[in-house]
């Protein structure tokens, strides 16, 4: 089944976003997250710190030393948590990353590579298909 989602027009130039549901696999708390497509992000999902408390992700924290490097030099220590990611009938248990300074959630290649993605730039629409 295909999913169509409009780009975020509040950014200049507009950016492709995907709305995913992030769920805590232990207490079933869930939240809709508007995640920006970031093919430069090598991992799965990068979440702002607010979701750590909102979804009680201290229940599924994974102990690993991990740092995000922005633009090649700005390091930030991340928390790693286990969550379910749900999207258009797709559901998978993943390691997600919680960033202390992040304001926009990012969806990286670790998740994007599971789908067919078509960026219809002129129409400002993202088309996503779960194989």
């Amino acid at each position, binding site marked *: 089944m295909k999913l169509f989602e409009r780009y975020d027009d509040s950014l200049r130039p507009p950016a492709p976003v995907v709305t995913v549901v992030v769920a805590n696999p232990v207490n079933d708390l869930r939240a809709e997250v508007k995640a920006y497509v970031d093919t430069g992000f090598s991992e799965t999902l*990068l979440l702002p710190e607010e979701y750590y408390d909102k979804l009680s992700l201290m229940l599924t*924290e994974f102990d690993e030393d991990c740092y*995000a490097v922005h*633009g090649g*030099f700005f390091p*930030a220590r*991340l928390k790693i948590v286990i969550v379910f990611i749900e999207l258009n009938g797709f559901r998978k*248990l993943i390691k997600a990353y919680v*960033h202390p300074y992040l304001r926009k959630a990012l969806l990286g290649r670790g998740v994007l590579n599971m789908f067919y993605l078509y960026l219809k730039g002129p129409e400002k629409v993202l088309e996503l298909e779960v194989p």
Partner: protein
Amino acid sequence: MEIEISRYHYILVFVNFIVGKRGVFLRNIDEEVYREVKARAALLGITVSEAVNMALREWLRKPVVGVKGKRDYLKDLAERLASKYYEEGRKGFLVVVSEREYYLCSSIEECVVLLRRLYREKKIKRSIIREVKPKSVRFIEVGGGGIEVI
């Protein structure tokens, strides 16, 4: 080589200072460190920005092995158990929920099933999952060039 949290904090402050050129608000600058940097920069006849750049370049040349943070008894216990199990040749994922309660699971899915049960029984408010292997530091690249944190 281990880096103390205070030093890491100063480095972050320095990085924030540089990024600040792009309009980032600066917080938690240690005034004493800043005053010293400013005084030394003046003595050398360079700007504070140049001094910060020099410090960062110097820091980047050194390998980072680990950073000490606040003590976390669950993580400390997970670390001790992981080392012990690894030496014993055991594999899997440790789930540490308290000082006396910890489990060894074969997969992350099994950890989740266990945690769901403990949560239903109101036995946990927090947990740490730790793979039984030596701990390493991992760096991941974020493609936004910093714009996602502004």
